[in-house]
């Protein structure tokens, strides 16, 4: 009898221990060497060249191809993020706007391809990397407003919560799990309402806010 009792206590205990461990730990975020699935894009856009950190070594000899990035703000290209549900892909005109005056890379295959699209006046069929199921409503505007404009966080940090360290990637890859539990784990935390106040609030936990 005692043995049975002991055994059952052990079993029940193990169940709860494993169960609560499994639920309390956030799902592991993929590491830097495992960036998540690769997506083939029409043009291999180098995010690291555009948004990556400036490399002081580049200043020394401007004639050599630069190794570092240009630290362009995410929202310079993904301009809709602060006023729309979606961050948006920049219109072709935006790429051309800069690139037609950057002579140094004009003959590279990627840029050539870009100009091919531009001359044909065809939109580039970019593939979605961060593709949530259609029953989910993710609002970029709300997140950008809160974390960039109210909390005054650096843009790359705020975007990086969900998109990972894009500035180090070439073609963007999904780094974060983007599952519901992952979203909810952040929504349950208290965040500062704004940089100037100590008031906090958490994200909505109402199903209807994110599900449509």
């Amino acid at each position, binding site marked *: 009898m005692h043995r049975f009792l002991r055994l059952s206590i052990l079993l029940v205990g193990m169940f709860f221990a494993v169960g609560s461990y499994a639920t309390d730990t956030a799902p592991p975020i993929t590491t830097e060497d495992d960036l998540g699935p690769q997506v083939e894009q029409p043009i291999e856009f180098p995010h690291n060249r555009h948004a990556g950190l400036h490399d002081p070594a580049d200043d020394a000899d401007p004639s050599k191809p630069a190794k570092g990035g240009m630290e362009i703000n995410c929202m310079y290209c993904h301009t809709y993020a602060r006023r729309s549900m979606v961050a948006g892909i920049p219109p072709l005109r935006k790429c051309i706007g800069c690139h037609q005056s950057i002579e140094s890379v004009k003959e590279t295959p990627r840029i050539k391809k870009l100009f091919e699209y531009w001359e044909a006046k065809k939109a580039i069929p970019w593939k979605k990397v961060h593709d949530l199921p259609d029953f989910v409503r993710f*609002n970029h505007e709300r997140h950008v407003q809160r974390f960039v404009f109210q909390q005054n966080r650096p843009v790359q940090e705020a975007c990086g919560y969900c998109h990972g360290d894009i500035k180090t990637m070439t073609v963007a890859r999904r780094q974060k799990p983007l599952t519901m539990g992952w979203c909810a784990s952040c929504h349950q935390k208290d965040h500062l309402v704004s940089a100037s106040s100590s008031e906090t609030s958490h994200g909505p936990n109402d199903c209807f806010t994110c599900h449509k």
Partner: protein
Amino acid sequence: MIENGFDETTSHSAKPQSEGQAAGYNRRDFLKTLGWGGTAVALSGCGNTSIENGKETVVSYVEPTDYQIPSIGVYYNSTCAQCDAGCNIMGRVREGRVLKLEGNPNSPVNRGKLCGLGQAGVQAHYNPDRVRQPLLKGEAITWDKALGLIAEKLNGVKGEEVAFLTGTMSGHVRALLGNYMDALGSKNHFVYEAVSPAVERAANKKMYGVSMPRYRIDKAKVVLSFGADFLGAWISPVNFSQQYAQFRKGSRPEGRGVLVQIEPKMSLTGANADRWIAARPGTEGMLALALINALGTAGLSIPTDVTAVVKDYTPERVSLDTGVSFEQINRLAKLLKERSPSLILAGGAAEGYAHGTQNAMAIALLNHVLGNVGKTVEAAAGVPFPQIAPIPGSRSALTALGNGLASGKYKVVFTYGANPVYSAPAVSKFSENFSKAGFKVAFAQYLDETALAADLVLPLDSAMEEWATEVPEYMAAPEGNVGYAQLSVRQPLMGRLYPDTRGAGDILLALLKQRKADEYKGFEDFYAYLQSAIMKNKAALGGADCADDKFWNDTLGSAILPLKGVAGSISAKPAIAGFALPAPVTADASYPLRLIPSISHSMRDGRNANEPWLQESPDPMTTIVWDSWVEIHPKTAAQLGIREGDIVEVTSKSGSIKSQAYLFPGIHPDAVSVPMGYGHQAMGRYAKGVGANVFAMLDPVYDKETGELAYHETSVKISKTGERIIIVKEEGPARGSQVGRKKIAVKVSADKVDLSKEV
């Protein structure tokens, strides 16, 4: 869950009120820059979908547009083409697709509202059964070939041998068509509408001096309507519904209005009346004259010439003829006398007789006697450009065309916006006559009955793709602006779905270029023609102080061009000759019942039958969907042993149909009613074979004064076929039980409630 495919789908719309303020862009560039790929919507599987990578494409633009943000809907203004009321609409456009149509709040016509029929316009646009290429006897051909063929067929044909049949037309397409007919040297433009207030126009012209006055339901204390279904399908229903909402407001200075409807078959308006009176079909005019007598008795001063005309129609006698009780007539007279101003309307149910014009005139006389003319019946202004003014359609036009076809006079016939093969009575043998024409060209959106009978079918743009302008026949006006008139613009809300469709204006322009190449070679397409035509008259259109670009952009932004109208004048003194109102017809023993072809508010004359929302939207009165029906009064049905769901055969002298019987308390016991618009033999998957075509069985009786087909002059007999089905209706077989109405649909008597203080 289902992915509905459009990338960046997560999103929100603009505020519903923010109508198309997207002025300041080049309209045609806009259509180009959208870059929506016309991709098929991937309705992928449901279930525990998780994150996908690289499966979908993101919408991206070539050119940035500051008015277009992905995921935010933008509203563009345009004009509805679903019926002739000409409501101003706005369409919500997102990622290059038009999603939903809504009323334009700045429109005096529909004031931000839109009926179900109008909203189904998107389904006319995205309809799977549209014609996508020019078809020569069913075979797809190119436009060049099609236009060349027309030129070839017209070669050597005299002007009088060409006929052009259209629906009601107005605006610049009408002007262009006029030019084309002139170029052909033809005067044979027939404007045909299967359902039109043509009789009323004639009567109004005689009684008020204008054919389409402006009715002020919102100013009337009493509306007495003789079969005018102004809430359902009469002239401009959304405008009248808006007025009706005002009319029913207790907080209005006039107080809550009273609506009395006199008609043999209860229409939507009848259903909303405080009193619905089923006078014997055809006796409406008599009843109006009896009311004048009763008003005189009640102490209203009646001009002597009127008294002389109406003296024979005493309430006592008319009560016997109409079946409306003497007390009821007096009660109505009392009400009309006490509550002034009132408004008397005459609609289809009073006009569809051989003496229809007389009926309508008698009813209009009541307005004169009550002093409503000038108060609730106003003169509406007309557009200052006669070449774009609406040509109202009528059925007599079809009779004329039919006669010409029968004699083999016409070598080439064009049809546009009309489906006479479907809606002509079988006895008129229209389709037989139509086949006598040498070469028949149909401008068509669907392969409807007429398009099928044509040799060449030219695919039309939908109303969401084409450029056009429209002048509503019934000219509504903003409050206090009596002389208002407007020109409404219809513009593309998105790029063409199919590359090979053309707007009617484009086709006409191409045809004109065949005739007068020099004159029209400056216009690349109809858009260019329209722009130049409007810009030419910029000053007259209120843009005198405005830069060209701004004026044009503003025009497209609002899609309404207010005009200084040509004021009409309404005559306070009608010319009253005698009335020739016949005594009610005694029933023919072999055809004892009167057939009332009813105008269903969503089907109308059947041109919209292929829009599934409309088929599935229950008829308000019977709640029947996806079929036609025969309304029979329960008493009549009991005499004939007919139960609900019996398939009955309705036979007239000219034809017969079979349909399901529906027992309906809102119909005169001596009448049966069948809705129009059903029973298509072609047109598309949603229309074909649904219900029965009541047009086919109408007797050829015509209004004596206008020559219009008298709709309500068909006598029928009814017999059971022995078949019986369960009617598909919202009520269901035992659904829609009326038991709950006391608790659920509560009603209160007007004297029990003080409405004046309501919010």
